[in-house]
């Protein structure tokens, strides 16, 4: 997982609340065997509408999504985070995130930045009135700047640390690689192995 310190990119104002994971990526995209390439499924239903924000040239290449409250509700699919990241989104800003989505985001390297409802509204308005403007996010300082705006965001300290260090679950466990090796040395020799394949 790539470490996250600061990011600057075009802000996308998504003025909707309760953006559930079925909207982020519909179930039909889950049959795939790959872990990347889900960008075409991102907001698939909404993107069929020419008036949808991502169909506006000014926002198309955006990487900081500013949404309404309760982002990421519904099914626990990890694909929602993959789809956002595959599209190029690095930060989602919302006044409230669904728990599982927030957890999946932290694991996948996507920053879920929680702001107050008032600040969210200010960001949405600014981006709507200034299409193509950039948003800068500083994780260490927990600060978002955009035009004249400078607002604080919340993130739990554990997730912040993981993102700053770029540690995914596996990397976290591998910090205990020595303990794993030690444990393996004490395992009973009677335990079965399958033997590696001939290939």
């Amino acid at each position, binding site marked *: 997982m790539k470490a996250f310190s600061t990011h600057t990119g075009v802000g996308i104002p998504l003025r909707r609340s309760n953006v559930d994971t079925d909207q982020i990526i519909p179930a039909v995209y889950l*049959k795939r*065997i*790959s*872990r*990347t390439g889900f960008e075409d499924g991102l907001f698939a239903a909404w993107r069929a509408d020419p008036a949808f924000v991502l169909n506006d040239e000014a926002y198309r290449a955006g990487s900081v999504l500013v949404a309404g409250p309760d982002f990421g509700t519904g099914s626990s699919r*990890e694909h929602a985070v993959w789809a956002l990241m595959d599209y190029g989104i690095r930060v989602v800003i919302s006044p409230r995130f669904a728990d599982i989505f927030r957890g999946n985001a932290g*694991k996948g390297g996507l920053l879920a930045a929680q702001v107050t409802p008032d600040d969210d509204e200010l960001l949405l308005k600014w981006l709507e009135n200034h299409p193509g403007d950039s948003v800068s996010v500083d994780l260490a300082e927990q600060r978002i700047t955009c035009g004249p705006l400078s607002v604080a965001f919340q993130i739990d300290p554990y997730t912040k640390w993981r993102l700053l260090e770029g540690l*995914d*679950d*596996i990397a*976290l*466990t*591998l910090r*205990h*690689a020595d*303990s*794993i090796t030690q*444990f*393996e040395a004490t*395992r*009973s020799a*009677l*335990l*079965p*192995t*399958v*033997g*590696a*394949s001939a*290939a």
Partner: protein
Amino acid sequence: MGRTMAEKVWDAHVVHRAEGEPDLLYIDMHLIHEVTSPQAFEGLRQAGRPVRRPDLTLATEDHNVPTLHIDQPIADPTSRKQVETLRANCAEFGIRLYPMGDAEQGIVHVVGPQRGLTQPGMTIVCGDSHTSTHGAFGALAFGIGTSEVEHVLATQTLPLRPFKTMAITVTGELPHGVSSKDLILAVIAKIGTGGGQGYVLEYRGEAIRALSMEARMTICNMSIEAGARAGMIAPDQTTFDYIRGREHAPTGADWDAAVERWQGLVTDDDAVFDAEVVIDGSALTPFVTWGTNPGQGAPLSASVPDPESFADEGERQAAQRALAYMDLAAGTLLRDIRVDTVFLGSCTNGRIEDLRAAADVLRGRRIDPNVRMLVVPGSMRVKVQAEREGLDKVFTDFGAEWRSAGCSMCLGMNPDQLTPGERCASTSNRNFEGRQGKGGRTHLVSPVVAAATAVRGTLSAPADLDPQPALVG
């Protein structure tokens, strides 16, 4: 204070423990199949990580494989792609695979035990919720998600939060004609599909001790249908006798040492469970489901319940929805429900004993003309064994179809599916809407009930059948 079996196995596998963090547990055996592994392997590739212990990882093709014409390429492109991807991944990462057509191929939860890879006291995981099956040997075994599959491939460990323990004690002796499937369906109906949530279930008591290994696997298999992540049964002589002599079982002095260790795994007398449920095994009768979750079941002698009879509002609505989907009227005798299809198979009831029990009912009888019956062995070994015993002949003479091994109609990822509105008596484990095919209707039953149902065309137990004609030849 004493410890339960589950706690002993857990404690013996802790690699790292720290305040406020989940325990890091070592995994003794990781089983994989084609559906939940592709993205895990891709994650490894992206991060440039190897598989830590290919020698503790075993793959088999089961969910997608056709049960007919297995010598030909898989026709469905999505299925074929998943299977081909598994083959490429196993070759790349050095993992042993039992592909379609191999003598060892089969449903992942049938293959592990039959090779002696499932042993008491082990931790076993698989990207499949019915991994609980392996708990029948006194192993701590549970299903995991795709990112956890990747985690185990890379580290051979899993970070886990502790669970609670529940004892399910089954007293007395199961009456003749009542199988472990009836027992577990009755347990689920009693504690509900959420009753086991957060718990590891330990099945104990006289009735459990009297069961064969295969019957015990059927019970642990469906722990997940009660909401539990794992189910366990203490290892005893029955367990040891089953394991002894299998390919991966210890031999000679190692065997004696292993048995001694296994005997120490059982729950201490003074251990305390977080919850306890007692069931009178001697009062059980054949049990079937009428609804669309495994908790919506009743004795075969009962009738379809009236949704109004449920005190709980949620249950009442669920029952209403289920009856509408199942196209059943409250008050209908379960025995009067006509089926179109009978499915004998799955990791719940696709083992040799299940096939034998069904064949005993079918011998010398003819299938109801309006019913089709599919018999799908859980593994190629089960298939070969059944053919050696002539069971395939019994099934085909009866009018059933004899197929090759796989998950098949348990979930309908291969061509074995129900058509909309079709009704099936199935020995599998999930009766969810559309599970066996879009619009299909599922009644979960035991192998002998499946067999008797194929004879009469309506849900039936062997006791409902006319006496078997004298067996000729």
